[in-house]
């Protein structure tokens, strides 16, 4: 499954990103950045409520497929700019991380 399919099937709002052809391999939930960076795998969907600039750094270094901000967590302006510079896909949903992860598990 690619990110485009994820967006369509789970009706996610796109906050940043143009190319949605990245492949999804799995999913990781977490808000502590060191924890996420060390454990999230390349190609994971990352579910988090952290929408700051440091989340973008972690997404780039960990090579996640996309960030999904759950519970409509906000993306701040610095983070959006950094995400654009680094081609990081950022999506948003009103669902919480548990609900989102459960929905994703039905797809992958």
């Amino acid at each position, binding site marked *: 499954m690619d990110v485009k399919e994820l967006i369509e099937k789970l009706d996610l709002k796109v906050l940043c990103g143009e190319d949605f052809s990245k492949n999804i391999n799995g999913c990781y939930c977490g808000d502590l950045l*060191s924890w996420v960076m060390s454990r999230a795998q390349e190609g994971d969907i990352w579910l988090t409520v952290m929408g*700051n600039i440091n989340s*973008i*750094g972690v997404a780039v*270094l960990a090579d996640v497929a996309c960030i999904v901000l759950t519970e409509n967590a906000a993306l701040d302006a610095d983070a959006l700019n950094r995400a654009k510079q680094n081609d990081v896909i950022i999506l948003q949903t009103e669902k919480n991380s548990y609900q989102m992860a459960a929905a994703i598990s039905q797809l992958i």
Partner: protein
Amino acid sequence: MEEVKLHYDVNAYDFTCAGEASGKLKRSLKDLGFDASLVRRVAIAVYEAEINMVIHAEGGVIDSTITPECITVVLADKGPGIPDVELAMQEGYSTAPENVRSLGFGAGMGLPNIKKYTDEMTIDTEIGVGTTITLKIYNR
């Protein structure tokens, strides 16, 4: 490939730039053709050390030496030093202040992650003088 040396400055308390040095190093290693999993290991280790410099040490300098066999990264700061390295190496132990924790840092995973992702890590620290961390990751 000949030996490549790269230098980065890390600013103190500047979380908007935190991760830039490790991000740049990651791109350089990718461009040099290193294997993706090796690049990821270097990037994670250097990111953690870079963030430590921003949080604890008023910034510092990063010098990397890249050869086909080994990537060596030396991160030097003039911060307060680490009083108890053994304690700091324990997963979950953190001295990060509350404002930093609210940004998602302070998991107490920094030094443990660095050790986990590198082949060699040495910490040279002195109270009131600073800390130098040397990392080696071999291309096997």
